[in-house]
């Protein structure tokens, strides 16, 4: 059989394979993580709540992210006036899931996951918490309660997202978002919240390739949040904000970026582009 003949057969097989979808790609997603500080803009001497959140939306749009994790997300409260998660979702054309930490007057305080692709299931979980003032109090903890449970009620949540890999096939990935306690020293509360997150989202034996993003309030993840460090890979970080992938070795980081938030927040946005290795 001539080389020319073999080449033609190879070309036909290649075309058939492409047509049948055998060359479906693995998922590639760009994820952004940002603590928006309840939309309180710095004014030089403090912060003012802004009613117009278009600058926040512009920053998020400019990251080009397919998936966004947001912390310190107050919404639908009296001072917010409306449901801010859906306001951002509408502007970006994204699906959204709210991870409630606690009720706040007529609204809520917590975390958010936004996605360009459909969210097929989602769940949230409250971190173990007790307040020195008893039930119904969610912040300003003190004394031994502060040392054991942290300053305020925190939560962790996930969204299982259907990411297309070809025109007819898609794969589910799990995106986990949390905001760990900021106040207590030493780090026992953050260590506990990492363990709680791993167990809740099954990050040590994930059902789906997973990503965790958020303000984890540590610059020493290997020692402070070993439950996450030991079963995941750190894809990106900026100060206290992190993006981890699970299981170890499952993802390749193709790009990372830190986006300055200017006076919008005391945290910059962390962005990573990730490709699944299978």
């Amino acid at each position, binding site marked *: 059989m001539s080389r020319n003949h073999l080449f033609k057969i190879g070309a036909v097989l290649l075309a058939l394979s492409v047509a049948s979808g055998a060359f479906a790609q693995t998922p590639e997603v760009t994820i952004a993580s940002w603590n928006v500080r309840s939309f309180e803009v710095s004014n030089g001497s403090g912060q003012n709540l802004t009613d117009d959140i278009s600058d926040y939306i512009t920053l998020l749009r400019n990251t080009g992210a397919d998936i966004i994790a947001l912390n310190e997300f107050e919404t639908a409260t009296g001072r917010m006036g409306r449901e801010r998660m859906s306001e951002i979702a509408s502007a970006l054309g*994204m699906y959204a899931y709210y991870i409630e930490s606690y009720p706040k007057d007529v609204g809520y305080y917590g975390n958010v996951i936004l996605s360009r692709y459909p969210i097929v299931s989602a769940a949230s979980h409250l971190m173990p918490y007790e307040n020195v003032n008893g039930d119904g109090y969610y912040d300003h903890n003190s004394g031994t309660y502060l040392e054991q449970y942290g300053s305020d009620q925190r939560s962790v949540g996930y969204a299982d997202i259907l990411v297309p890999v070809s025109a007819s*096939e898609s794969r589910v990935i799990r995106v986990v978002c949390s905001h760990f306690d900021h106040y207590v020293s030493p780090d026992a509360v953050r260590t506990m919240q990492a363990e709680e997150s791993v167990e809740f989202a099954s990050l040590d034996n994930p059902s789906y390739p997973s990503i965790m993003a958020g303000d984890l309030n540590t610059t020493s993840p290997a020692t402070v949040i070993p439950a996450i460090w030991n079963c995941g890979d750190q894809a990106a970080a900026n100060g206290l904000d992190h993006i981890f992938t699970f299981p170890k070795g499952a993802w390749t980081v193709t790009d990372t970026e830190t986006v300055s938030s200017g006076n919008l927040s005391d945290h910059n946005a962390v962005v990573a582009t990730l490709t699944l290795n299978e």
Partner: protein
Amino acid sequence: MRINGYYKWLLMLSAAMAFAGCSKDGGDDTQQPGGSSIKTSAKVQFVSRLTDASLFSSSSDADEVDGFVNTALNDNGTVVLLDRTDKSGVSYVADMIVASRKWSGFVSLGQNGTDDFDVSTIVFNNPSDRISGYQILSGSYVSGLSVDISGTVTNLDADGNVTNTNNVTVSVPFYSCRFETEDQINAFGGASGVMNVMKSVSREFVVIGTVKNDLMQALQSAVTSADSGYTAAEVFKGSEYSIFMLYATRYWGFNGVSESEITDGITAYAVDISWK
């Protein structure tokens, strides 16, 4: 405190007695000793074109649906399913719940390209700590959540006259999906099908979704084959799709459906369910 506690127990006992006699199928009145009966009723709003088209063909469609959704949810106790909001409707739906402080969950019905899915949206009143999804076939899911729905318990005498009506809140594990191929129905039914997986988590789920008209019988057969304690009732037959309600007859019943046109081609179907 003792008197309050006594009345609390009395109320709980009365409620338990009211529900204990409910045992008939199909949402009919439940007969009581002496000829009296009890009727239970709660409505799920299902907004659809019952065609292969997306729900919103224009922003004016979205405005009309917006008005309906926020009126329907103003009683702070019910749920609306928006069928086929799709990618083109993501922003419309998000926008319509900004001011009203409502929340949403999603059902992926199928994939249409590298960046396009058919999707339905469930709109409800409070953030949910769990929205569950089960894959039927690639891209198509049955998804839902437990929602509190406003309902009524009506007492009738032996002549069918209403003697008392109580407003109640019913917690319904509500799911939705779409069946457009026989392969999807086969994957849902059967011994190792999705329905039996859902049953292993909780037997009380209610699925209100759509099925291609010519597949309705196949769905009904698949459901009863998987478990004879379940049924898929035909709720309403449209031009291309029918609405079905799938449930365990031990827990739920189908009372009927009423229609109201929202705008040209878009109709709200109030699916009236009973519980036992």
